[in-house]
């Protein structure tokens, strides 16, 4: 774990962050610096606080101790207006897509273009078509989200998350609930977009295989602690028994 708390060049810096719900400590003194322009994967078993960590970074939840610095701003100390503005530089893929159920797929993808960037309708339409092709779903724009499969919904959510070419994109379990082939195709899509756009991607998952396929950096969360953090090859070669246990899928006793 890196102790050099405030590495300024990180897209996201966590500095001794502690977060509890009630008297249950979810994140326990976590520090790390997530670099920009790369894919960072945070691995960990279910319920260790991976989603919580992202919610702290985007300001949907607040920590009790420590600082979360995103794009140079201390998230917790921002006023609501500034926070909303900072968030316009993020994209996020939620665990179940969080697509707006009452509007079409095309309107979902066009939503941030229309409501945040206030682009004119023809420009929105053109960009939506482009994004639908990018995620491999041309022609589904007219459907409503409930007429899509799980994998298709994630692709659409992905298109919506990158519509404004944000500086950081957060992915909450992009491959959970998908068959191995569809998972692999989502991984390929993430890699392709990362290479093409050069954005900072933060991915949380418990899918070790997927982490291997997309990560530059890997972090290992376990029991609220960041047990390992660094370049993928280093972490994957770790000799720490807990880290090894998770990576080698040994049953957890």
């Amino acid at each position: 774990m890196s102790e050099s708390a405030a590495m300024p060049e990180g897209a996201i810096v966590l500095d001794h962050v502690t977060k509890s719900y009630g008297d249950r400590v979810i994140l326990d003194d976590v520090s790390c610096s997530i670099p920009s322009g790369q894919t960072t994967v945070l691995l960990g078993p279910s319920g260790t606080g991976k989603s919580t960590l992202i919610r702290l970074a985007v300001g949907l939840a607040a920590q009790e101790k420590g600082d979360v610095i995103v794009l140079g701003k201390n998230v917790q100390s921002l006023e609501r207006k500034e926070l909303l503005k900072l968030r316009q530089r993020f994209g996020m893929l939620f665990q179940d897509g969080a697509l707006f159920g009452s509007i079409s797929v095309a309107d979902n993808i066009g939503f941030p273009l229309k409501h945040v960037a206030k682009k004119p309708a023809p420009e929105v339409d053109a960009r939506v078509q482009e994004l639908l092709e990018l995620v491999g779903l041309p022609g589904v724009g007219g459907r409503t989200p409930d007429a899509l499969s799980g994998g298709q919904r994630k692709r659409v959510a992905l298109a919506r998350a990158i519509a404004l070419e944000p500086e950081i994109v957060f992915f909450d379990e992009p491959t959970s609930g998908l068959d191995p082939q569809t998972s692999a195709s989502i991984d390929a899509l993430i890699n392709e977009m990362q290479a093409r756009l050069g954005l900072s991607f933060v991915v949380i998952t418990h899918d070790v295989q997927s982490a291997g396929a997309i990560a530059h950096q890997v972090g290992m969360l376990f029991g609220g602690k960041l047990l390992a953090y660094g370049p993928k090859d280093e972490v994957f070669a770790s000799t720490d028994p807990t880290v090894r246990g998770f990576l080698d899928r040994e049953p957890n006793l």
Partner: protein
Amino acid sequence: MSTVSLLVKERLLDPVLEVLSTALFGFRALVVALRFPYPGDVIALLSRLLITSIPVVMAVAFAAGAMLTVQAAASLSLIGGGPFSGTIVGLGGVREVFPLLAAAAVAARTGAEFASALGAMRVSQQIDALEVMGIDPFRLLVAPRVWACVLGTPFCVVVSNTTGIVGSFLVGVLQLGIDRGSMWQHLMMSVHIGDLTTGVFKGAILGFLIGVVATREGFETTGGSKGVGRATNRAVVRSMIAVCLASLMLTYVIYGKQVLG
């Protein structure tokens, strides 16, 4: 904790906190709504409110007008004052019962719809998704719905008054055999134009309460799809209670002097 202190917490402290937190939500909604965000959405929500609530309002108000007339006539005819049942409907119906029923219909129909729609958006993280896009869900979702209720409920009150009077007149004349002319005269004599404008004003206030309570229950839903059902149910029950209490208070404020001196 002892059973007594637990009971105090559950029955006294929690409800008070709920009311306070709803009041805070209402204040925030008011501040945001005064900037009138997303007028297009307000119009869409308002038309939907009118289309879905008005049939309910009409059915309920017609029945209430008829029932009031039957009961009023039953007691008044003992002293030979059948046509005076028009006065009762004109006063009690138009001033109190019909507006209250209109608000109850809006709460049941539209309040439930708003709570379940926002609740579903909350538990499927759609509201979080808006937040992360940098869009204020309070402006986009809450304010237009509160406006729809504030604008739509007065209209429902007008419809409710009209239907209630029609119901009263038809039952009085066709069924109870009260003279058409004197029934109409008593109805019209007791309804003042001031009562009608008061009804519109009251409708706006009750509509605000319905909008705030329903969106708050939906907006703060927790606990998955079960939670959405719970929020919807609460929205209806709580907005009905709010509407009745507010209506009672308004009666004292507006008519208290007249009657109590």
